């Protein structure tokens, strides 16, 4: 079948099998930042924003995402300027192997969009669909708090 998608702000027209998952389609089309982990909706490494809601792209049939807005982690940064959350993850040492990082950052982004100053408990709950097998999560929670501060400061400056 053929379908149209708006990926990171650009309209894309693709041919794909009717039973293809959004994860596989995005990766086939070069969006390597969407990682393939468990394919069961458990690990969160394949997360994308679908109509601005975070979803596991492995649990979305591509056909059901036609004519919808999709954003990957790469869409968060503006030009050469990394998103404050991306910087925060690097500064906090929250990236080890990096496999979970795109999903983690998108989950954190969704949280901070609705709640700019979350508690640690709220951060844990928002990241409940994202596994990290390297860091033990402490540095990730630290990165989200650091990113929240950066985003608040950026907002004040603007």
């Amino acid at each position, binding site marked *: 079948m053929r379908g149209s998608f708006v990926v990171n702000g650009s309209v894309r027209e693709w041919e794909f099998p*009717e039973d293809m998952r959004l994860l596989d389609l995005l990766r086939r089309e070069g969006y390597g930042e969407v990682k393939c982990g468990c394919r069961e*909706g458990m690990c*969160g490494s394949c997360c994308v924003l679908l109509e601005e809601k975070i979803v596991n792209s492995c*649990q979305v*049939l591509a056909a059901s995402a036609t004519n919808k807005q999709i954003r990957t982690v790469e869409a968060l940064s503006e030009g050469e300027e990394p998103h404050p959350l991306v910087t925060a993850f690097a500064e906090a040492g929250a990236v080890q192997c990096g496999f979970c990082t795109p999903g983690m950052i998108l989950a954190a982004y*969704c949280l901070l969009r609705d709640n700019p100053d979350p508690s640690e408990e709220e951060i844990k709950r928002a990241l409940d*669909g994202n596994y990290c097998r390297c860091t033990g999560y402490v540095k990730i929670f630290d990165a989200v708090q650091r990113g929240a501060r950066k985003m608040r400061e950026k907002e004040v400056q603007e």
Partner: protein
Amino acid sequence: MEWFFPKTVDEVIELLGKEDAVLHGGGTMLLRGGLRPSGKMVDLSGVESLRQIVMEGGVTSLGGGVTYAEAARRLGESDPDHILVQSLGKAAATPLRNRITLGGSVMAQPLWSDLLGPLTALGAELRLEGKNSGFFEMAEFLRSPELRSGNLIHSLRFPSVSWRTWYHRETRTSFDYPAFTLSLLCRQEGGRVKELRVVLTGTSKKVERLLGVEERFQGRDAEERNFRNLEEFLPETFVDRPHGSASYLRSVAAVALERGLRKLMGGDAA
């Protein structure tokens, strides 16, 4: 496989009449169960009326296409302790809650459901459209497998009553499937228990209302409440699970039940 993108309920009903029609809400259960190559996939995301949430006239109505996340968010705005806020807010994980729909979850009736217990406790009714159009009580729907084919769950409705609530999902870790769930709703008046509803899920009967427990506490004031030997009111329908044996789970459920009842009725919440 062929995809259809209806915009109205009438179009959905027409498509439901086709052979091999499969309704696609969030799609998570379909992927788990395996896709039929010959299936006619009817995507419901374009049907606006299935995503409506209406709270008026003492009734709350949730569209069958409303996601767990959206239901928890909207109900939580007016009642943060609503039983569905507690249950749906804890189910699965954030990205999945943004996909799983109420209608899909009721239709699939997975053993690990965090929806069926609370809906039964709330006395919810389902509005079906299709082969059997009309309103059906949850209990009737659950014991009538024929209602699951040829019908669309248009919406669910229940009285907008203010309850004291307690919800428990028995899991090994926060993202685990629950071995069982307990939904407790309680209303008190003048120190007496006016109404109590206790619903257990996860047993071989899927959903069971614990009428014996309800009768023990209803109409009682604080001095008359007896929290001892609650295990005798729990059914023998628990099954062996990765979480533990049937008898173990029954004992754990008795402890959870006592905790919930004490918490709701102002006793020791430990």
